[in-house]
């Protein structure tokens, strides 16, 4: 049994290693200063970069945070403070289910909700699609962290005659703040690489795009467009873009985990 299960483990880890090795090998050779500073070149012509796509992705993530973080953090706090309420049980279940809704469906939802009434694609719609995807992750991690706040802390505050809502806002949440930020980072790492919800919301843009009411570029969209294009130079840039994207995602993800493990140890 040991041999078989060990073999399974190696087989499962093999694609990860293969992907990372290929990414590093192909991506690094395609990375240069131009890639980070220039706009995409004309179709078929070598040169150009993905500066606008990197900026667009950062913009979209901030928008998603504005939508998803308040709902996620406050909702998660409610779940932790009133764990047995009927609403909490329902929400917990709904958040888990929502976590599994395909990202392309989130894109359709944002399309129907925002693109249709506005009649054109916009960064805002992309941000909302990503923000909705952020909610369940942030909510469930916030709930877990807020639960870890010792009861004695809450009781000390309540004993001073401070009302429950103020205790939650001024005592419990600040105590849990570091952990909540970690949870948000894990959520952001998850949505940063999403492509499907952006296809018909943010849509992509070949130029600098700062206006959230206009179509906006994003790194995953650009990688997709370049990967399925017929040009060698664009393939090369797709690998470079993928390397940058994976680096961002993994750095955020791993540092969040590291921070989380340290916080648990401190307690």
């Amino acid at each position, binding site marked *: 049994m040991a041999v078989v299960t060990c073999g399974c*483990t190696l087989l499962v880890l093999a*694609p990860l290693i293969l992907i990372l090795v290929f990414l590093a090998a192909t991506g690094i050779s395609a990375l240069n200063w131009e890639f980070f500073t220039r706009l995409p070149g004309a179709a078929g012509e070598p040169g150009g970069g993905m500066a606008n796509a990197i900026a667009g992705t950062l913009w979209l993530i901030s928008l998603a945070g504005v939508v998803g973080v308040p709902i996620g953090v*406050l909702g998660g706090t409610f779940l932790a403070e009133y764990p047995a309420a009927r609403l909490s049980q329902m*929400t917990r279940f709904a958040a888990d*289910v929502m976590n599994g809704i395909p990202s392309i469906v989130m894109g359709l939802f944002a399309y129907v909700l925002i693109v249709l009434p506005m009649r054109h694609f916009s960064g805002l719609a992309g941000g909302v699609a990503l923000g909705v995807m952020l909610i369940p992750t942030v909510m469930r991690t916030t709930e877990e962290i807020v639960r870890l706040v010792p009861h004695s802390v809450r009781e000390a505050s309540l004993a001073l005659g401070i009302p429950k809502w103020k205790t939650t806002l001024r005592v419990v949440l600040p105590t849990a703040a570091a952990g909540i930020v970690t949870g948000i980072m894990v959520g952001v790492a*998850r949505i940063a690489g999403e492509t499907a919800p952006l296809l018909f919301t943010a849509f992509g843009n070949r130029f600098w795009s700062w206006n959230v009411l206009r179509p906006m570029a994003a790194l*995953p969209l650009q990688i997709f467009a370049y990967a399925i294009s017929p040009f060698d130079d664009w*393939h090369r840039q797709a690998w470079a873009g993928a390397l940058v994207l994976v680096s961002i995602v993994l750095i955020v993800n791993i540092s969040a985990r590291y921070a989380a493990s340290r916080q648990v140890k401190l307690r």
Partner: protein
Amino acid sequence: MAAAVPVLIGVMLIALFSAAWPAIQRFGARFFATSTWDPVAGNFGVLPFIYGTLVSSALALLIAVPLGLGVAIFLSELAPGWLRTPVGFFVELLAAIPSVVIGLWGIFVLVPWVRTALEPLLKSALGFLPLFSGPPLGIGMLTAGLILSIMVVPFIVAVSTEVMRAVPPAQREAARALGATGWETTRTAVLPYARSGIIGAVFLALARALGETMAVTMVIGNVPQIKISLFAPAYTIPAVIANEFTEATSDLYVAALIYAGLVLFIVTVAVNALARVLVNRAARGPSMIRE
């Protein structure tokens, strides 16, 4: 704020339903039974897409479930403590890689390998089966299944490791005391106890596979057809939405694509809900051994 989540799911259902209404009205249930996909004539049927989605997901589970269970058994029963954390970490890392990057790797590394190595091998060994007939193209159902299995295996590993660890040590010790070997202990004490959680994990993975878009779109070939051969290109519901939505010119075309998305939404919510019920029950532990 907490109420926002159940409300959001309801709003999604209503929004998608109302946007799909023209197509629902026009095609009704016939939508699922016909294979014509003709945007020019305004005739839409999603049978080939449903077939592609189901077969590619089934293929993915066929590969990922045994492998994932193997890893879960390794992690929860066998691996020494110092190995557990890093292996678990790397498996989760696989889940963190964006699907567009896995798709990129799929196009330039996996597809050529499948075309030149795997498919010729399968053809020469099992070519008498209609499943492995036709020219080895690389892109197609088989590659889509492979890439999906890579993407869902972390979910199977994570959830089944968790439910197997929730099995009380007394169960294992009891089996050991009766003289069971390591494998017998796992088979008779751990697996039955964790069964409902493992089934839940499989359903979770199924929901992921059904809805996975980018990586599949990039390797499946995007041809709406129903072919027995796994070498043949196919198409899935998420892929057709991703590829054709921005090019959909008529309102009916858009509504038909949203109709397909609505079906995907309902199916994945149902599968996920079922999975959660099973996993929650298993994580809570006792009262589940009935035999």
